[in-house]
Structure formats: C-alpha cells, structure tokens
C-alpha cells in the first residue's frame, strides 16, 4: 500500500504528462469538438506515441505495463482537457486489457500491436436495448457452426461504434444458462452483417459517437472467442472494475478543471463592490468543493491500488469509488456552474459542457444504483 498518501516521482511525472497533453492538445479545442460532434481521432491517436494505446498491456507487444494507479492518473489528467476524450481512451484501454489478460498468444499478437499503436481503436459491447443494468440477461446470440460462430442481435449505446477500423469485443449468449451462458468475442470492423445505428443525440459526450451495433448473422472464426465459452460475463465484469476507476478519474479531471476555472472567475468577477472571492459563503463553497474532490481522489487511488493488487475487496472498492467520485464530480461541476452565475450557463465558459459530460458518468459503466447494489450485497453476504 505504498501509494496511499503520496505519489512517486514516476507517478507525478505520468500525471504531469497527461495534464500537459490535455492543456496543449485537447483543452483549446474541446468546445469546438463538442459543438461539431467531432471525434478528433488524429489527436487521440497521437497519444499512442506516449504509450497510452496500451496502458496496462505487457511491454512485449508495445504496451506500457502500468498499474491501475498509473491509469487513473492518466485519465484524470486527460480529462482536465476533456472528459469525453479521456473516457473514449479509457474504453480503448479496457479492450486492450481484456485481450492482454484473457486472450491467448495468437490473439494477443494479432490485436495488441495494432491497438497499442491505435491503428485500430477498441470498443466494448455489452448493453442491449432490453438489458442494461441486468446485463446477465442479454440476448445477442452466438451459434457455433463448424469452425465459425454466427452472431446475431443488437447492442445498444456502444461508445465509439462505427469508428473506422475499430475492434469490438462483443458479449453474446452461447448457452441459455443466464450469465454463465455468455461468451466474449472479437469482431472486426468490416465483418459482413455488421452495421451501426445512427449516432444517438445526447445531452453531453458529444465528442464521441454512441451508436447501436447491429449484428445480422455476422460470421467470425472460432479463434475469435476470448477465453472459453461461458467466461464472457466474468471477463466483462472484470473489465468493468478497471473501467469504473477510469470513468471516476474522468469525473475527477473534469470537476477539477471546473473548480480551477471557478477559482479564476471568482477572483476576477466583482459584485457589491468586492470580488466574489471575498464573500465568505462562496469561500466556504470553494473549500467544500476542493475538500470533496481531494477525498474522492484519495479514495480513488486506494481503490486503484486494491485492483492492482487484486485484493479480494477490489470489486467492492471500485464500485464505491465509481459511485462516490462520479457523484462528487458532478456536484462540484454543477456548483462551479452556479458560482459562474449566468455565464456558467453559456457554452463559451466551458462549464456547462463539463456538467453535461459528467452527468452520464453516474449512469454508464454500471449505474450508481448498481454500484450500491454491489456494495450492499457484499455487506449483507458478509453477515452470513
């Protein structure tokens, strides 16, 4: 538990690089990308040169082989420029992690170099129109036919779906045995029968597309099964532990940026003959915002350390962190908007975008209600 209370020089440097990249390459364009509904693939791909295409992937195939704390520092840092870009990269890394962890050597060799270089981006397809929180009830089918599988069904809300050259990990049913009958498959862009719904019109997250992934008798080689039949749900949930840390880190980065903008604003703006920063009510509000973010950050680091160490309570800590940090992040961003007055409501100030973007972090990667379910289940089962 070495990293609980201070960062090593390396971790500090990792955080610095992510923040610097965010400040120079992302933040200046974030509003423009939001407005244009534009996913800046060239900027995203340029993070591969920094080693962000395979943050957790082993070094033999071009990964950076960092631990989970390294990861959350990167995603918090990038999110100070734009949480949406950071979150897109998080999903990509989740896919690379799945292949590195559960894939066999030939799958690793076939996919990881391309994912680490970001020649191919990764997307994760679990949710369906009829099954979100209750993911174990999914109905997309994968039927074995000779040395192939044939996939059919619809995946809903898939981040990054339709981005050319994307590698999809699709969870599909190979047996009618509930969550134990689910398997994970690699599906490549361009597969016959694979198509996409129209980009969803959303409250935020404009800089990345969310679309349906439609599978109409998509035939893939048997070798595209990750792990064994029936392991899919375990793989999907395992990936979400890390995904939850990262989405929490995205909230933290976005909210920190909002707080920073607010600090500048209240020291500049005057009302009733003094600076906003001179009103004690607002000072206390700022103190609370900073305190809550720091608590969130500290706990997120602890959860990250537990996942790196694969401690037995890691899943519960990741769920607690996801729930707490994304809630705090949203409230801090919303307070930042309030402290900006009417200007906070204007696009130009960059605050309302953060509020819009962070709102969905309370919903995706497992809703915050589902996080409470995970935590309470562990409490109650612990009594037995």
């Amino acid at each position, binding site marked *: 538990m070495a990293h609980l209370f201070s960062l090593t*020089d390396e971790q500090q440097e990792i955080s610095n690089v992510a923040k610097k990249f965010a400040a120079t390459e992302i933040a200046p364009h974030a509003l423009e990308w939001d407005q244009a509904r534009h996913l800046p693939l060239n900027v995203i791909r340029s993070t591969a040169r920094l*080693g962000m295409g395979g943050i957790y992937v082993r070094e033999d195939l071009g990964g950076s082989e960092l631990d989970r704390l390294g990861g959350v520092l990167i995603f918090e840092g990038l999110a100070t420029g734009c949480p949406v870009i950071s979150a897109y990269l998080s999903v990509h890394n989740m896919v690379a992690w799945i292949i590195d962890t559960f894939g066999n050597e030939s799958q690793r060799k076939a996919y990881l170099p391309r994912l680490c270089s970001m020649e191919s981006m990764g997307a994760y397809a679990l949710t369906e129109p009829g099954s979100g929180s209750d993911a174990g009830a999914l109905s997309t089918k994968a039927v074995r036919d000779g040395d192939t599988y044939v996939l059919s069904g619809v995946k809903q809300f898939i981040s990054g779906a339709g981005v050319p050259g994307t590698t999809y990990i699709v969870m599909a049913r190979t047996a009618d045995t509930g969550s134990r009958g689910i398997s994970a498959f690699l599906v490549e862009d361009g597969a016959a029968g694979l198509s996409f719904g129209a980009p969803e019109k959303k409250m935020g997250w404009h800089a990345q597309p969310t679309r349906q992934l439609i599978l109409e008798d998509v035939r893939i080689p048997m070798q595209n099964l990750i792990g064994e039949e029936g392991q899919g749900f375990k793989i999907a949930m395992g990936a979400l532990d890390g995904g939850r840390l990262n989405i929490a880190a995205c909230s933290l980065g976005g909210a920190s940026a909002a707080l920073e903008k607010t600090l500048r604003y209240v020291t500049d703006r005057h009302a009733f003959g003094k600076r906003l920063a001179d009103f004690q009510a607002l000072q206390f509000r700022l103190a609370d915002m900073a305190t809550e973010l720091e608590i969130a950050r500290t706990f997120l680091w602890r959860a990250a350390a537990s996942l790196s160490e694969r401690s037995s309570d890691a899943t519960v800590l990741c769920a607690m962190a996801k729930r707490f940090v994304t809630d705090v992040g949203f409230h801090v961003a919303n307070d930042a908007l309030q402290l900006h007055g009417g200007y906070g409501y204007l696009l130009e100030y960059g605050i309302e975008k953060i509020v819009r973007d962070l709102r969905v972090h309370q919903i995706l990667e497992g809703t915050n209600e589902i996080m409470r379910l995970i935590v309470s289940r562990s409490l109650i089962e612990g009594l037995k």
Partner: protein
Amino acid sequence: MGLRILSVIRQVLDAEESVRIKDGMVDPSSSKLVLDTMDEYGLEEALRIRDAQPETEVVALAVGPARCEEALRTALAIGADRAILVETFEPLDVITVGNVAAQVARKEQSDLIFCGGQEADWDSQAFGAAIAEYLNWPQLTWTTALNLEGRTLTGTHDIDEGTESFSVELPAVITTQQGLCEPRYPTLPNIMKARKKELRRESFESFGLHSRLKFIRSEIQVKERMRRIVDGKDGSAAAQQLVEFLRNETRVIG
C-alpha cells in the same frame, strides 16, 4: 565513438503559477516547477540526432538546488541517456552558470551543447553566449532549423528582414527558440525507466567558482486595474471615450 551532446536545462516556475516572494527572494518552495519549455527544443534536437545516429549520447545538465532533479528526471523521461546535477542553493548569475556548463562540457568531452535562446525566468539571452565564450567555441543563436551531416552542422535563424544560414564544424554551442521543432512528450515506458538511468550529483563548490554578482532583492510589480468598461455600442463614441481615459486618467498618451 558517437557524438556526445550536452543539453543544458533549467527548472523554472510553471507558466500557470504565480510568483511568491519571501524575504526579498522568489520563493518557489510551494510552487509547481517544470522543465523550462525553452530548453525542450534543444533536447528534442539532440534526441533527433540520436534517432538518426544511435551511438550518440545525450546528457542533460542542470545547475541549481536539489529540486532540479525533478526537471532532470523529466529530461530523462523524454529520452536523455543520463543526467548531471551541479547542486547549489546559492542563486547564481547566468555567467557563472555558463562557466559551470563549460567546465562540465570539457570534462564530458562534449561535441555539441544545446540550450534555450532565452530563459523563461531570467530572459538574459546570455547563457549560450557565456558557455561558448568560456569554451572558445562558435555559437549559433536562435536557430529555427538545424541539420547535421557528419560533424558539419548547418542551421538558420530569423533576422528582422529574413533568415540567415550558417554552417559550423563541431564543437559548437547552439541556442534554440520556439518553433525550431515540436518537442516530444515523455512516453510512459520511458517515465518508468527514467528512475533507473544515471543521475550524477556534483557540488558547485568543486568547481572553484563563486558568483561575483549578488542578488539583493526581488519584488513583484503591483498592477492595479481600473475596472472601467467602455460601452461599445456606438463605435466612434467609444473610441472617443477610450482616448479620453488614456489621456486624462491613465496618462498613457500625452
């Protein structure tokens, strides 16, 4: 035997930080310090030479307090092979630091020295010149393009009405400026490796120098804003009003 390049770097306040003064001196103890971006261009050029000629060795040098180690670690993470920190708590003037750098270059048998054409804090623009003078080497200043063929370095820099081109046989001192190149970011694997690279500490005293220039005091200029907003609806009336402000209230114009 490949080229030996010395990249002299400095640690300065992050551009976003505000300057704090304590006991008449700039006090960076609670501020975020970074590798001077002005020095990143030279480091990048050095690394590009090494990319093309892998037997090249790039050494980063800093002169200053122990905390400069952070900036050197950044340089190592960006790609320098090893680092030297000449430690001193004394605030040194640019000529003295130039002397130290020259002595290190001699000891290291450097062929080429890079440093920023200016510094984010001092802005003396004399650093490269001082090093070149102590070594009696030629210097190319404010370069905007560089190309090395064998031991011949050609380069350009901007002058008021155009550009000048140079060529020089190594050894030489090169100063850089923004726009020379696009400095790379440290990569994550390199950050993890930076810790294992050599960072040698030397004491400033061992150089037998003392700064003849003494810092006495720093103070921060206080800027007061007038907080007057000119209503811009009627352009010419606004211009009129602005001229009046500038003339009568601020006396910026006569």
